[in-house]
């Protein structure tokens, strides 16, 4: 079922990878600050841009494929249109390194997790503004939105407990 293919040795450390939705390309953030698009599975370089000045720890792609979000040690979240290769906007409310990123199921909202700073700031992807802050008593490094609703899972209480915010009355809808 799962055949291993030859390992692909890289000249620079790859920090994060994510596939594009058609499944034949991979976006990679690298230790030299570049964002690369490679074909899959032959891993041939298609395009490369300088994207980050620091290591990228998190990457996510919106469900409609419009954008990818990248976050790293400088606490900045940048939004990239990877077909036109432009940085569309950035979000700067994070106070510590970005450890995880998650788009909502409808591609419209973005949230990031960090190990510094309390609260989870939710931003509107297309409007560019922050719309809501989930208050927490400690930093939450891991966040993930449900793929079908606005239920948001995160590592709360210093990361020791899974918490999920949701509209539980209507069954997570």
């Amino acid at each position, binding site marked *: 079922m799962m*055949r291993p293919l*030859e390992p692909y040795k890289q000249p620079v450390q790859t920090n994060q990878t994510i596939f594009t939705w058609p499944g034949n390309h991979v976006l990679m953030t690298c230790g030299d600050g570049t964002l690369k698009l490679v074909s899959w599975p032959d*891993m041939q370089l298609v395009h490369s841009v300088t994207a980050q000045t620091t290591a990228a720890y998190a990457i996510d792609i919106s469900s409609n494929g419009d954008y990818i979000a990248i976050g790293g040690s400088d606490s900045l979240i940048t939004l990239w249109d990877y077909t036109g290769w432009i940085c569309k906007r950035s979000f700067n409310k994070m106070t510590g390194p970005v450890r995880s990123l998650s788009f909502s199921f409808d591609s419209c909202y973005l949230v990031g997790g960090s190990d510094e700073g309390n609260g989870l700031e939710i931003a509107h992807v297309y409007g560019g503004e922050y719309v809501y802050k989930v208050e927490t008593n400690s930093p939450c490094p891991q966040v993930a939105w449900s793929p079908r609703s606005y*239920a948001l899972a995160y590592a709360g209480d210093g990361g020791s407990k*899974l918490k999920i915010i*949701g*509209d539980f009355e209507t069954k997570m809808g």
Partner: protein
Amino acid sequence: MSGTAPPPLAKPIYQSLFARTYSRYKTTIYSDAPPNKHNVSSSHNIRTLAWNPLGTLVATGAPDRTLRIWNPERPNAKHSTELKGHQGGIERVTFHPTKVSELASASTDGTVKFWDVRSKNSTAEVKTGNANLFLTWQPQGNGLLVGTKVRELQIRGGRKCRANAE
């Protein structure tokens, strides 16, 4: 996926209404620590978490090797499933993109394990030989990419994939 229809997607919330709607949502806590234990080691902290494709399960992984599957509607730990087998910390968990009960986990023990939540067992394992840092599925489930500490990406593909040259 199974024969029953998947639950419908939630209704979108407009930007101007987001704060008002979201502030009404409730937070549920899922804890597997014994209730009177106060000094849970930080190696038990969640390092990775992921939803399955229908949003009916959440997986968490920790440096102390705990890999746990939760049903969001059942916050009591006794209804969760612990998947045992890794010999090192769990760096990344990710569900199969189209199968609601199957997932893969990457560990510092140099293996990627595939699991079926229903049987609670590891169905397959691949050895990368190095501490694993991240993994990501190809969206149609035709393979996955594993990143390791020695700057290698390893691709596990289906029948159609060719070995790459580098």
